[in-house]
Each structure stands twice: as structure tokens, then as C-alpha cells.
């Protein structure tokens, strides 16, 4: 028999009304029933929020490295911690930058824009009069550095090609250096001491924040490469920063740079290269297992609580079907079809789950808001996707838990049900 659209609409409206009636008539029971779903949804959304937060914090950090910069270095970022594999590799020479640039200029179709040398140490100490900052990141480079970095200057200027070429004793400092060594006094033009050499401050970087919460770009002092080598020697940690033309063509750019470096290093075909080309994505792939672990734990916890919640709802719906046997019989006597009854009970369990889901979302929203207020540094993200996902999960839980009782209700014999006491 064909069910008209209109009939379906009216019956569904009736079922929705009845479900609301039923839930309002049994408030405490409905709430207890929904509790499992509430806990499940809080778990799912908290987990999602945490993962979102990690992602966002990470992306922010990676943006500091620059999405369009790749690095030629002695060791690879994606196998960090296996230093012994790279111990015997030759050092990266800062002169490679010049060689790379020459090749790039000759090739207009190159994926690479510019190469900049850098030599650095994390162990520098910066002094001004009696003030001393330890564990400063000192970096020697040339005047093109800014093209390959995300920082901006808040005052002053970067050093010029001329200053770089003649190894002037000038420096550009991070925000923490400026405020650490010169609280409440002008910074530009002052001299900061690295080891036994004094550098004149000509520029200050805008504050950038920490990279992965570990390493701060605000803690850096950038000087011309020659000047850096005069202070720290030639055997510091060196790398070549290479800016690429198209952010989307990182893979091609890496290929090209690999070939270039093999040529420069004169590595014969078939032999493994003795350098690494790194990009920020390597960090991301390192973080993925952690994220997956959190997600897996989250899915497990969420799954358990939703499972328990679903069983609770199934149980309560069975009880409800039993209690309302006469109502079911009457509705059938008055013309309700099997699917009408099925839908009525299904809508009821879905509605309980949806209400549970919404309450759960509210709780999570409140918790994330509170955490955000208490610890503003934590990257926490409550997203629309999560709202959508948890509502979908609620509906599915409702359907799964309501289906069996609803089917049993729809199959009840009308004559027997009408006489049920």
C-alpha cells in the first residue's frame, strides 16, 4: 500500500509531539537515559577539541618556519634522534648558497627562488653591562635572510648587502632579547655583547611566540655571517635556507634542490646523498602518531560510553514499549501502520539521544571556554565540525538503540495489546 507524503508528514509530526510529551512526562528517567550519551559526547568533543588544538598550535608554529622554505642540512628532521646516522656526513658549507643561487639564476624554469646561508648556535649568551641572557639563539646569515623567514621588524632595519659583505658588527634582535637586556630603555643603537665582541643593534623583530612551545624565535640575535664566524668560528651548525617559488610545488622543488646539491657535492649517480633536504612537513609527520594515539584512545572511551548509553536507551525503550502496549494497540486499531509505530519509538530514542548530545556539547563548550579563560596559552579549538559530528553520532546512537524495541513495538498484535493489563 502506498503511503502518501502528506500522511507521512502528519504521522511524523504526531510522533515528534508524542516523543516530546513522553520525555517531558518522564524527565528524570529521560535524563538518566541520556546520561550515557551526554558522557559520550563530552568525551568525543573534548577529544576532538584537543586534537584540533594540537593541530592549530602546530600549524601556527610551522607557519613560523615558513611554508615556502626548505632547508639543506646535515641531518633529516623526519628521523630526529638518530644523530648517529648523520654523524659522519660532511658539514654543510655556507658557500653552497652562492653556488645554488648561481645555478638558479641561469635556469629561469627553476622551482627555487633564492638560497640563503645560515650558521647558528643555541648556546650563545648575550650581555649588556651587568645583564646577561643565556641560551640565546645566535644566527649568522646574509641580507636576504628576511625573504626566507616569517619574522617582521617592529623597529629599525635589517642589515644591508653592504653590511653583510663587509661583516659589519651589527645585529637584529628578537623581542625577548630587546626587552630582556633593555627593559624600559631605547634599544636601537645600543651594543650587545656576544662572547667578547660587541654588536650594534639596528633592528628589532616583532614578537612571534614559541615554536611548538619549545623554541622561541623571540630569543634570537641575527648578525652578518662573517661576523658570526669571527665570534663562533666556522664549525657551528650550518644550513642553507632555500625559498621556493610555488608553495604547492614543494615536492618538485625538493627534487630540483636534491639534484643541485648532488651536483655541488659531486655525488655519483646511484650513491646515497650525504645531506638532507628538510621542510616543515617532516614535523607534521612526526606529530601524526601522537595525534592518532589520542584519537584512538578518544574513540575507545567515546565508543565505550556511547555503547553503555545505547544499552541504557534500548532498555528504557523496551520498558516504554511494555508500558504503552495498550497505547500501541489502540493506535493500531485506529489505523496506525507498523512503520508508524516503529517511527514513533525510533523518534523517541533519537530525540533522547539528540537532547543528550546537545547537553554534552553545552558541557564541552563550557569546559573549553573555562580552560581557555584559565590557560589562554593552550591552543583550544571548538569547531563547527565537532558539533556536526557529535549530533550525527547522537542520532546514530538513537537509531541503533531504539531500533530493536521499536521493531518489537511495531510487530505487537493489536488485539492482544488492546487487552494488555
Amino acid at each position, binding site marked *: *500500500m502506498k503511503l*502518501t507524503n*502528506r*500522511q507521512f508528514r*502528519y*504521522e511524523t509530526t*504526531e510522533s515528534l509531539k508524542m516523543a516530546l*510529551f513522553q520525555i517531558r*512526562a518522564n524527565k528524570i528517567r529521560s535524563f538518566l537515559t541520556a546520561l550515557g550519551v551526554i558522557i559520550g559526547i563530552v568525551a568525543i568533543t573534548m577529544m576532538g577539541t584537543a586534537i584540533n588544538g594540537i593541530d592549530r598550535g602546530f600549524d601556527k608554529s610551522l607557519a613560523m618556519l615558513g611554508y615556502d622554505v626548505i632547508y639543506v642540512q646535515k641531518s633529516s628532521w623526519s628521523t630526529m634522534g638518530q644523530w648517529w646516522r648523520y654523524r659522519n656526513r660532511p658539514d654543510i658549507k655556507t658557500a653552497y648558497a652562492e653556488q645554488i643561487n648561481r645555478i638558479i639564476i641561469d635556469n629561469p624554469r627553476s622551482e627555487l627562488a633564492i638560497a640563503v646561508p645560515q650558521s647558528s648556535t643555541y648556546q650563545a649568551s648575550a650581555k649588556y653591562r651587568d645583564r646577561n641572557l643565556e641560551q640565546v639563539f645566535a644566527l649568522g646569515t646574509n641580507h636576504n635572510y628576511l625573504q626566507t623567514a616569517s619574522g617582521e621588524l617592529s623597529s629599525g632595519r635589517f642589515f644591508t648587502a653592504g653590511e653583510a659583505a663587509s661583516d659589519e658588527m651589527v645585529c637584529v634582535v628578537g623581542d625577548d632579547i630587546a626587552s630582556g637586556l633593555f627593559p624600559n630603555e631605547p634599544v636601537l643603537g645600543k651594543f650587545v655583547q656576544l662572547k667578547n665582541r660587541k654588536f650594534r643593534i639596528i633592528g628589532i623583530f616583532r614578537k612571534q611566540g614559541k615554536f611548538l612551545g619549545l623554541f622561541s624565535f623571540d630569543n634570537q640575535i641575527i648578525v652578518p655571517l662573517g661576523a658570526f664566524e669571527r665570534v663562533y668560528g666556522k664549525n657551528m651548525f650550518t644550513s642553507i635556507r632555500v625559498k621556493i617559488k610555488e608553495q604547492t610545488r614543494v615536492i618538485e622543488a625538493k627534487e630540483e634542490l636534491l639534484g643541485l646539491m648532488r651536483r655541488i657535492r659531486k655525488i655519483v649517480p646511484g650513491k646515497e646523498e650525504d645531506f638532507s633536504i628538510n621542510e616543515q612537513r617532516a614535523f607534521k609527520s612526526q606529530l601524526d602518531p601522537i595525534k592518532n594515539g589520542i584519537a584512538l584512545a578518544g574513540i575507545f572511551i567515546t565508543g565505550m560510553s556511547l555503547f553503555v548509553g545505547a544499552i541504557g536507551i534500548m532498555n528504557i525503550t523496551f520498558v516504554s514499549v511494555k508500558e504503552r502496549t*495498550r*497505547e500501541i494497540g*489502540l*493506535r*493500531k*486499531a*485506529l*489505523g*496506525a*501502520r*507498523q*512503520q*508508524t509505530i516503529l517511527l514513533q519509538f525510533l523518534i523517541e530514542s533519537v530525540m533522547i539521544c539528540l537532547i543528550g548530545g546537545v547537553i554534552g556539547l553545552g558541557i564541552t563548550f563550557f569546559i573549553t571556554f573555562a580552560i581557555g579563560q584559565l590557560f589562554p596559552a593552550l591552543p583550544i579549538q571548538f569547531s563547527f565540525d565537532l558539533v556536526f559530528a557529535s549530533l550525527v553520532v547522537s542520532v546514530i546512537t538513537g537509531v541503533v538503540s531504539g531500533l530493536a524495541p521499536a521493531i518489537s513495538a511495531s510487530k505487537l*498484535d*493489536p*488485539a492482544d495489546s*488492546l487487552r494488555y493489563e
Partner: protein
Amino acid sequence: MQTPSIITMQSLSKFYEMGDQTVRALDLINLDFRKNDYTAIMGPSGSGKSTLMNILGCLDTPTSGIYELNGQDVATMDDDELARIRNKEIGFVFQTFNLLPRLNCLRNVELPLIYAGVAPEEREERASKALINVGLGDRIKHKPAELSGGQIQRVAIARALINNPSIILADEPTGNLDTTTSHDIMNIFGTLSDAGNTIILITHEEDIAHYTRRIIRLRDGKIESDVRR
């Protein structure tokens, strides 16, 4: 001239398996109900009148035999077709009233129209009219708990009539009412019969049966007597 048959039952049987025994609740019944018949079905308990009532009301199907309602062969219908027949052709009135306690009178009376796919405005209008017709125009928004037994049964009658059914099937409609109220309710059935409705009552009370124009007595699943007056 004879009025046309609304219900025709031929060699209709209903058997139940009880353990290894077969109970013949209805045994080769032949019955005919014509338009505007006003019938009482009587019989002691176990005589098969409940089973007959269930089959007449399309709440159950016979084991064998023919049951035609308004020219439709009901005996072979599936559950959903039976639901449609119950909705369109039959108005039920029960001994225990069977109103939904959470709904007010209007919403109770509307129920069959929802399953018939009638629009909300029309439902409300028809349900109000039906309630006015049974003398409850001032109780439309009341819940069953706020009404007397007689009033509740009148709501149930309004609900039975709402879809203009072919037959009204009343199962002990006065069983839970006092004598005066029973009399009132039977007067309503009388009025309905005068208006041309076909009514089948199930009762075990002789004085109630005597409001009708035809009395069918059942015994052991067979028709003992069928008397028109």
C-alpha cells in the same frame, strides 16, 4: 427491498493452537450484516464473541473462510492493509474507553484523522464538530482525567465516528458505566442508528442488548440464535 450487505462472513473459522490441542474459537460461522443493522452479539465467556469482535474489527484474520467488508476481501489482507481498513471502515468503542490520558479530548478524537492523512486545520474542525455532536462542546480542551466515565465514553464515540466508518464496533461499551450513564450512552447509539449508521455491540447484559434490533447469540464458536426484531 433488502438493503445491501456491508459484511458477509461465510464458513468463517478461527482456530488457536493451545499446546497439542486445537481450540475452535469460531467454527464455520455464516453471518451477514446489512447497512443500518443495529446488532448485539451475546454469549458467555469462551463462546467466541471476543474472537468474532477481533475479526469483525480487522484486528485479527480468520484461519479460513470468507470475510468481506464493503466488498473488500479482508481475510487475506496484510497488516498494513488491515490498518487502512480499520482506519477508514471501522469505528471502535471499547469497554475501557482507551483514550490517551496525556492528550486532551480534541487530540484524542483527531488521532484516526492523523493516520488518514488529513490536514491539521481540517482535523481540528472535524474533531470539534464531533465533540459538539456528542454534547461535549465545552470540554474540547479537557483531558480524560477531568471527565466522568460517561463523558469519556462519549469522547470515544466521537473518535469512532470521526472518519465516517462503515460500521461502529462497540465492545461492552457500558461495561464500566453505572446504569444511568449506560442508558445515556445507549441513547446515543440509538440516535446514531436512527441516523443510518451500522452498529455492532458486544455485550453480556440482556437489557443493553434489548436496545438493539437484532441479537446474535454465540455458543462454543457457533451461532446459537440470530433474531431480528
